[in-house]
């Protein structure tokens, strides 16, 4: 085996990355976002997708600079994902000149947030960030409305789902959330890629352009090394400088994409609509 493009999510990508590292096989994930994937020190682990630290720092910056939130309350669900994001958001909020006025915790099973929301309300925040998934985010925004809270609601990719709008109903209106990466229309080669992909395989999949670029980043390294032998082309991967469908791809020392894009969405008229795409400063 010369190399691996994968896997789909962090839960599968992280345990597999140790096996590839032990056997010297380069791996490029098109879609894993967990911070831990590239912090284990495995020189074989790369990704072309924005990681959660980059997403968190964009979210914190966006909340303060673009949404004008000076006082930010942060809630997370105590999962590795939710807490990891919340920590990054907290750092970025402070760095951008905002204040974290409350830091509350819940679980990924809870549905009643009245107690923590009441306590947050007392600190009069401009915005509440939630690091977690839609089954918690939806009742949370409903209960915010029940308590008469006017603070903005900001989530990440666990919240930016159709299910969130379905569960929260009319209360979802105005909610903001991010997703790593670019929407297809905003990618440099997006329109052409969609046309080619759909002609051959049918309806386009979310991560298809990223998987496509991941393959060509690997091929590009093999070409420069003049070999598909992992021992030879692995040394070429850090030097990647490739213009793909999703944008320009370069890696930092850990194997993360530099300047990974994060797109922000808002619920308007019952649908997620693109607000803007921000490049993370890494």
């Amino acid at each position: 085996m010369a190399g691996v493009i994968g896997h789909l999510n962090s839960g599968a990508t992280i345990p597999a990355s140790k096996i590839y590292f032990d056997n010297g096989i380069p791996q490029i994930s098109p879609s894993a976002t967990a911070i831990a994937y590239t912090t284990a020190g495995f020189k074989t682990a790369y990704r072309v997708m924005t990681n959660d630290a980059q997403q968190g720092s964009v979210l914190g910056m966006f909340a303060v600079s673009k949404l004008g939130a000076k006082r930010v309350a942060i809630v997370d669900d105590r999962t590795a994902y939710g807490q990891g994001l919340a920590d990054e958001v907290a750092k970025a909020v402070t760095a951008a000149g905002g204040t974290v006025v409350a830091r509350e915790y819940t679980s990924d099973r809870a549905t009643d947030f009245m107690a923590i929301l009441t306590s947050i309300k007392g600190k009069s925040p401009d915005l509440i960030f939630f690091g977690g998934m839609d089954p918690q985010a939806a009742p949370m925004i409903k209960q915010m409305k029940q308590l008469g809270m006017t603070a903005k609601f900001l989530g990440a990719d666990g919240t930016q789902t159709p299910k969130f709008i379905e569960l929260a109903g009319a209360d979802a209106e105005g909610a903001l959330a991010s997703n790593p990466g670019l929407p297809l229309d905003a990618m440099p080669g997006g329109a052409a890629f969609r046309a080619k992909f759909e002609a051959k395989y049918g309806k386009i999949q979310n991560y298809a352009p990223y998987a496509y670029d991941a393959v060509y980043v690997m091929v590009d390294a093999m070409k420069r090394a003049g070999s598909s032998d992992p021992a030879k082309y692995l040394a070429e991967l850090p030097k990647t400088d490739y213009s793909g469908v999703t944008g320009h791809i370069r890696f930092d020392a850990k194997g993360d994409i530099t300047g990974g894009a994060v797109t922000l969405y808002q619920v308007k008229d019952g649908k997620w609509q693109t607000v803007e795409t921000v490049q993370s400063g890494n």
Partner: protein
Amino acid sequence: MDIFLQQLINGLVLGSVYALVALGYTMVYGIIELINFAHGEVTMMGALVALSVIGALALGMPGLPGVLILAAGLALAIPVCVALGLLIERVAYRPLRNAPRLAPLITAIGVSIVLQNLAMLIWGKQYISFPPVLPQGRYEILGAHITDVQIAILVLTVLIMLA
């Protein structure tokens, strides 16, 4: 002060819901001295049946007033729970009436597992939310907020406790 009052309301509403469930537990325990582990699952079945009826009516007959839709949900959920209760008693508890006390406790846990999985087969494992059939009125007292639904929960619980 408004935080204290709001937390008091939060606590009372949540406590009322727990009290209603606890009332069911003590009634069963008082009569047959068995902790009915399936009690929560019967309540869950009732909620899911009501949800299905209300969801179907809200979608199928959008003109129907919310109170009627809610009543229809209740009207079906109550007999379903009664029937379920009778069936559980017949199948899982009655054959063990004279058995050691641990035996019906174990069948109670068994029934609870069966009902949980049955609900997952019928309704799936996804989170579902109740369609808002009643207009949500919200009142403000000294800076604390309370909704119609919360008031209804409090009043109903007190009434049932007294009855």
